[in-house]
């Protein structure tokens, strides 16, 4: 019976929270907007949990639930409703979104309470208003059953990201960062829109069921040549991937993510670690059947993911700001997810999404705890030795860090190892993928190094700045409880995807079996080769300890100044941004000259004619009498002549 709770509630609860916090939140006393907002997300999580249990008790092949709320667009051939598709994939995503989202809301109650950027306390409710709206849109994104509704959620989370990154809008860096995030996302969205238009042209509908049925039953529809000989079968997946590149920060559209650290830390945890950035992975996974007929695009995705993983991991090694390390780390881990997607190992990619959500959120919230206790200090060079002062943060950060580094037997090890294994196995069909796999292992090594370094630099050794160290203190329970939960999750969630515990039969492949009915057959979930297992193990352990050594000695692997000249940001600024400004200047010139010219002309004309007409107002009565007499004569003459 409770299994019929409408799915729409999952979206409506946070929408209600958005309305309440937005409209009357600023009149409430401090923790109440936060409590209301957390309450709505908790309610969504409970509804989601009940529905997932309801899904789990259904037989494995029938786990697809469709719920329509109302008809939204019905114009000509386009029919797009507000309706939801609930299957194992959306179940996993919605639990992540609402579960981790709830923990982050809880954390934010304490974190945002003492905000030195907000002395009046009036901005507090605004934060929760946007955070709730974000949960609503993200839930819409993963529950939608057609591309157009998913795009509504897609744009919505980008919008909320804009508001939340630019939350402290009086700061220069926040202003620039939020614009940058939105604009770069937009470029990806353009690709997504083109893909949707192509899908509509080829298939005639934007519903998942119609599109995927068309791929399965009438694949010849997709051989339509769009650009010369390039068919829709290639172009649609490519454009979808462009969209994913923007949202999920791959090369070349990742530049917004490091700058997005200008927002509050819980925002970085929720949006830029656990949920929004995984929207791209979700979208590609959902459209898995579309990618089946485009092996070249799949290889492209894997290569882009690999390069992103390595490049971002190396960048993370060179950072001194505690949040920037995690930002580049997110980009790198997303690269791993796309590597998995590229070889068709969608279940492993989603498994990494799950693991990443836990440990990255744990790390971000942990760094927030550190920043909070050091009163806003984010430079790791000034930290050190905090393990003694902040015990809970220390242990949870360690847990998250070990999971990220792929330290056996924690979460990251299983997910990353399975991904790299799948990539290398797929290399039998395409040699370039073997190179990708090797690079992936290198990236995993670097991941361990920078994570170990970060942990050691912040928590181990001796304090580098005595004054800051004096004031450091453990954070309150609203912040530590979510940390503990996420920390335990980081350690434990890996066992869900373990493939090798076949001697405990119920545990083998739990996660991949859950997701199996959703995806078109991609990489098989076979047992990974022992050699790769051992290599992964050694990399995880070795990378971590190597990093710790670097961190204890505060060795940053900084790029020499000469290499800093070339960066993607600088290239973009010199070309696209410059061109944008040139176009804007030209438009302003046209506006000033022509539009303003015409308006001024009209105004001037009115003025001049007024001056001319003023001459008739002589104020002499006899002139007026003469005018009347002349007028009377003219009228009379006209009647006479008629």
């Amino acid at each position: 019976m409770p299994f019929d709770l409408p799915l729409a509630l999952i979206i409506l609860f946070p929408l209600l929270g958005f309305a309440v916090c937005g409209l009357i939140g600023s009149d409430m006393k401090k923790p109440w907007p936060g409590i209301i907002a957390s309450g709505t997300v908790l309610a969504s999580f409970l509804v989601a949990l009940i529905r997932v249990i309801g899904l789990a008790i259904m037989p494995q092949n029938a786990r697809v639930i469709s719920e329509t709320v109302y008809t939204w667009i019905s114009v000509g051939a386009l029919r797009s409703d507000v309706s939801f598709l609930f299957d194992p994939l959306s179940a996993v995503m919605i639990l992540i979104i609402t579960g981790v989202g709830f923990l982050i809301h809880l954390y934010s109650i304490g974190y945002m309470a003492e905000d030195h950027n907000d002395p009046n306390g009036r901005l507090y409710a605004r934060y929760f208003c946007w955070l709730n709206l974000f949960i609503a849109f993200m839930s819409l994104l993963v529950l939608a059953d057609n591309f157009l509704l998913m795009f509504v959620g897609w744009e919505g989370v980008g919008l909320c990201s804009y508001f939340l990154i630019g939350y402290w809008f009086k700061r220069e860096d926040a202003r620039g960062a939020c614009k940058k995030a939105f604009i770069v996302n937009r470029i990806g969205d353009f690709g997504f829109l083109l893909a949707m238009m192509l899908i509509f042209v080829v298939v005639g509908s934007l519903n998942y069921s119609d599109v995927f049925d068309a791929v399965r039953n009438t694949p010849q529809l997709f051989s339509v040549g769009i650009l010369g000989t390039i068919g829709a079968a290639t172009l649609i997946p490519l454009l979808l991937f462009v969209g994913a590149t923007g949202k999920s920060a791959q090369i070349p559209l990742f530049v917004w993510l490091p700058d997005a650290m200008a927002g509050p830390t819980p925002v970085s945890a929720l949006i830029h670690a656990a949920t929004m950035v995984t929207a791209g992975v979700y979208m590609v996974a959902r459209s898995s059947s579309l990618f089946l007929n485009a092996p070249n695009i799949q290889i492209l995705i894997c290569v882009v993911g690999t390069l992103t993983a390595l490049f971002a991991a190396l960048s993370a090694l060179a950072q001194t700001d505690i949040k920037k390390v995690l930002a580049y780390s997110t980009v790198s881990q997303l690269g791993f997810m796309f590597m998995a997607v590229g070889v068709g190992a969608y279940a492993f990619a989603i498994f990494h999404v799950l693991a990443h959500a836990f440990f990255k959120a744990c790390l971000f919230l942990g760094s927030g705890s550190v920043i909070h206790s050091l009163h806003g200090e984010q430079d790791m060079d000034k930290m050190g030795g905090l393990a003694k002062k902040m015990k809970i943060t220390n242990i949870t950060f360690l847990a998250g860090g070990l999971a990220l580094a792929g330290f056996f037997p924690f979460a990251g090890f299983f997910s990353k190892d399975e991904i790299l294994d799948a990539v290398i196995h797929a290399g039998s069909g395409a040699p370039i993928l073997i190179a990708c796999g090797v690079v992936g292992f290198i990236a995993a090594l670097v991941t361990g190094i920078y994570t170990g370094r970060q942990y050691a630099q912040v928590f181990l050794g001796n304090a580098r700045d005595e004054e800051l160290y004096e004031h450091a203190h453990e954070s309150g329970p609203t912040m530590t409880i979510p940390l503990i939960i996420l920390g335990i999750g980081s350690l434990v969630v890996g066992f869900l995807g373990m493939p090798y515990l076949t001697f405990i039969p119920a545990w083998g492949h739990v996660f991949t079996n859950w997701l199996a009915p959703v995806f078109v057959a991609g990489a098989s979930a076979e047992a990974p080769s022992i050699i790769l297992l051992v290599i992964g193990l050694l990399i995880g352990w070795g990378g971590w300890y190597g990093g710790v050594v670097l961190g204890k000695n505060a060795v940053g692997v900084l790029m020499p100044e000469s290499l800093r000249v070339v960066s993607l940001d600088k290239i973009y600024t010199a070309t696209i941004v410059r061109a944008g400004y040139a176009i804007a200047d030209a438009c302003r010139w046209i506006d000033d000259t022509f539009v303003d010219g015409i308006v001024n002309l009209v105004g001037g004309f009115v003025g001049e004619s007024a001056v001319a007409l003023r001459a008739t107002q002589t104020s002499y009565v006899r002139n007026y009498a003469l005018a009347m007499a002349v007028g009377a004569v003219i009228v009379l003459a006209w009647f006479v002549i008629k």
Partner: protein
Amino acid sequence: MVPTSFYILISAVLFTIGALGVLVRRNAIVVFMCIELMLNASNLAFVAAARQYQQMSGQVFVFFVMVIAAAEVAVGLAIIITVFRNRETLDVDSVNELKN
């Protein structure tokens, strides 16, 4: 019988003299007298037409015109007296403050 056109002609001449007087003369009372002249010229035209067509309506209308003339004179003289009290002159050219 005198042809009606003579009467109309006289009426026209009187009207023209009155109109020109209104436009040319500067003394306000003289302007009023010229206006009366114009009104009476039109009365003459009405009566002449009444005689020609043997209708009483023309003569009745003359009464109406006279009533209007009387009312207008009452109001107009009141205005002239007020203007004179304020500026000690009856020159119509002197009331020229409503300039552009």
